[in-house]
């Protein structure tokens, strides 16, 4: 019997062999060590992401999210839904807020769900993995399993947008959230507290449609980390991770820069600090390899 159990909503990018597969790997490892049991919501679907609006419209977006809620309530009663992807969490949480506060939308949504014989009761809670770690376990619990502290590792905590705004993590400020820095600290690493780009936007979905504009954002994010001699960047968001990691080579190609700053997930830091192998920490999933972490993992 695990200490904590949740209904897991991995989301499209965090499923096996997807762009955030390494996130999934490390989350699983992390959860083992922290005795957290994640049970995937059966037959979950996409959240619509932040870009779904244009074609999708309001109610369809709400409806597909509600479908996940309904499934969770039906198959995993009493368990909070936990998402690891920032966009999934935000999309789901927004849906819940709006449905729970607008009876008309709730009615219409359930009308739509009925078409698949489903119903959302408005019971289930939507959490982000970071919330679970901080609120349900606490920093001490996160620190406890550390066997390989990330000594001397300078890490820029890049929080980004969607785990931070508009809901954010309880007790954190939108402009200067500190939870990633605290993670780094309890894991024995060295946080860069004055990291200016901490909550800057990576361009999100516009990385595809407006590459120039987004890459300008990404460039700032990486440069500022380097200004503070960061050896790697850590983030809670798959889109942030992908954008900031993937496009460094593009930026180099276009601007003659020589960026090669590894971008990892907090869960990867924990996996390593908790003593798991590079593979279990998903480090092999990095485009820009992070020798520093691998070295610790292989110690």
């Amino acid at each position, binding site marked *: 019997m695990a200490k904590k159990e949740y209904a897991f909503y991995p989301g499209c990018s965090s499923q096996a062999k997807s762009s955030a597969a390494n996130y999934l790997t490390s989350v699983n490892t992390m959860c083992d060590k922290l005795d957290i049991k994640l049970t995937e919501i059966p037959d979950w679907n996409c959240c619509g992401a932040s870009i779904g609006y244009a*074609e999708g419209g309001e109610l369809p977006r709400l409806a597909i999210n509600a479908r996940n809620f309904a499934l969770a309530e039906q198959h995993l009663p009493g368990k909070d839904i936990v998402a690891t992807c920032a966009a999934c969490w935000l999309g789901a949480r927004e849906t819940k807020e709006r449905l729970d506060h607008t009876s008309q939308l709730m009615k219409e949504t359930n009308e739509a769900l009925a078409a*698949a014989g489903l119903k959302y009761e408005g019971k289930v809670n939507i959490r982000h993995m970071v919330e679970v770690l901080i609120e349900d376990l606490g920093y001490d619990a996160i620190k406890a399993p550390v066997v390989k502290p990330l000594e001397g590792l300078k890490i820029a905590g890049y929080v980004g947008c969607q785990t931070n705004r508009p809901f954010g993590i309880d007790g954190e400020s939108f402009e200067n959230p500190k939870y990633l820095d605290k993670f780094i600290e309890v894991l024995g690493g060295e946080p860069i507290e004055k990291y200016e780009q901490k909550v800057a936007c990576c361009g999100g979905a516009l990385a595809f*449609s407006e590459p120039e504009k987004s890459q300008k954002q990404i460039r700032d994010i990486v440069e500022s980390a380097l200004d503070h001699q960061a050896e790697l960047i850590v983030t809670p968001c798959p889109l942030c991770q992908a954008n900031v990691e993937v496009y460094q080579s593009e930026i180099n190609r276009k601007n003659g820069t020589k960026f090669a700053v590894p971008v990892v997930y907090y869960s990867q830091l924990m996996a390593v600090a908790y003593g798991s192998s590079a593979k279990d920490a998903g480090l092999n999933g990095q485009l820009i390899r992070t020798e520093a972490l691998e070295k610790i993992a292989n110690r």
Partner: protein
Amino acid sequence: MSDLNTQAVARYKNNFLREVEERVEEGDMVKMCMQCGVCAGSCPLGPHWQHSPQKIFMMIRAGKREEVLTSDSMWMCTSCYNCIVRCPRQLPITHIMHGLANYAHRLGIAPKGQPTREFAKTFWNNLIKKGRVNELTLTLAHYFANGIGPGIQIALNMQKIGLGMVLAGRLNPMEIFGGHSVKDLNGFHAVLAKAKEIEDRKKGFSA
């Protein structure tokens, strides 16, 4: 689609604000703006669009329907939510921007070939196909959206990345054949269809 537009014009005459309130997601909050401009200064893509959110709200009140709906400003939204959390009147600006984009898109008067508009369309179609996003087909579809020529160009530029992703186990070539999907696809589609039907009725797109 443009008949939807003419029909809308006929229905709301010059009262664009009323049109937005009734048909645009969270549009009923537009009237609450007090023109402080904090949203304009908070947007990461600020330098790139023509009209700031607060200005768009003013244009809506001033009845500048054409200018607003054909503007590409709201298509620049990265959904970073800075505007929402700073707005002293707590307008859900991000959602209103999404709503306006969606509405302009529905009416078929959103800027043609606007890359985000195109990508958003591709994305949605991709996800509803199987209920989950197929990142490979999504990427390809996007890169080839403007035809084979430029597509290949981009694809070549992105090749290294794509390859890297594959090697890193984060992009699955096999996804081209199917890939992830929800099992109850019919149910999923039924839900979507119903939701769309209700929304269209509500917003007067269907009789």
